């Protein structure tokens, strides 16, 4: 049973479109994250939610809007897609109060904007 799942795994779309990536975790964790891994392989945090509340919002264009309907889900909606949005997006979760803040990652969604 997959702990952190993301859909879709691959997403190819045209510039200017709006798309969403869904993430679900069945670990009972309180905190969820979105990361972007660009072509340089650098993993950069975008957002973090704790119990459905936004707690981290890095310098991300406001075309990106996370939505957390409940603490098991954190979806990422992207408006007016641009070429530079092409990347692999990872969702992750962690348990609040964990000493190490070990995060559990989903398999990633490879977004290609044409």
């Amino acid at each position, binding site marked *: 049973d997959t702990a952190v799942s993301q859909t879709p795994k691959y997403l190819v779309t045209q510039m200017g479109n709006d798309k969403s990536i869904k993430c679900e975790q069945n670990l009972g964790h309180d905190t969820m994250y979105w990361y972007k891994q660009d072509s340089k392989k650098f*993993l950069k945090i975008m957002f973090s939610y704790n119990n459905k509340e936004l707690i981290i919002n890095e310098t991300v264009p406001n075309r990106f809007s996370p939505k957390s309907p409940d603490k098991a889900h954190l979806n990422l909606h992207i408006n007016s897609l641009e070429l530079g949005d092409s990347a692999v997006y990872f969702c992750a979760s962690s348990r609040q109060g964990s000493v190490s803040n070990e995060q559990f990652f989903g398999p990633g969604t490879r977004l290609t904007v044409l």
Partner: protein
Amino acid sequence: DQQVKQNSPSLSVQEGRISILNCDYTNSMFDYFLWYKKYPAEGPTFLISISSIKDKNEDGRFTVFLNKSAKHLSLHIVPSQPGDSAVYFCAASDRNANAGKSTFGDGTTLTVKP
């Protein structure tokens, strides 16, 4: 401003030998450090961590060493196995700030040759 750096993008070792992956950080407030391992087309998975109050943590073939004065940590894998071939990310967090956000390095690709 990259606070966590992995200066070696790649490392190749022979099976059975020791692999040493290095990581440097600049933020003296970081108090927990983690290593993640990532296979192609998968999300990163947690490997081992160390608190800033320790200088060594060992788990089977994996040992992490922390040198706080040098702001340097390393991951030792011995003996290395072909299945260890993956990208290794170092991550650091300041648990008293930034909601436990982890800052990742840009990864080192380890290749273990049979």
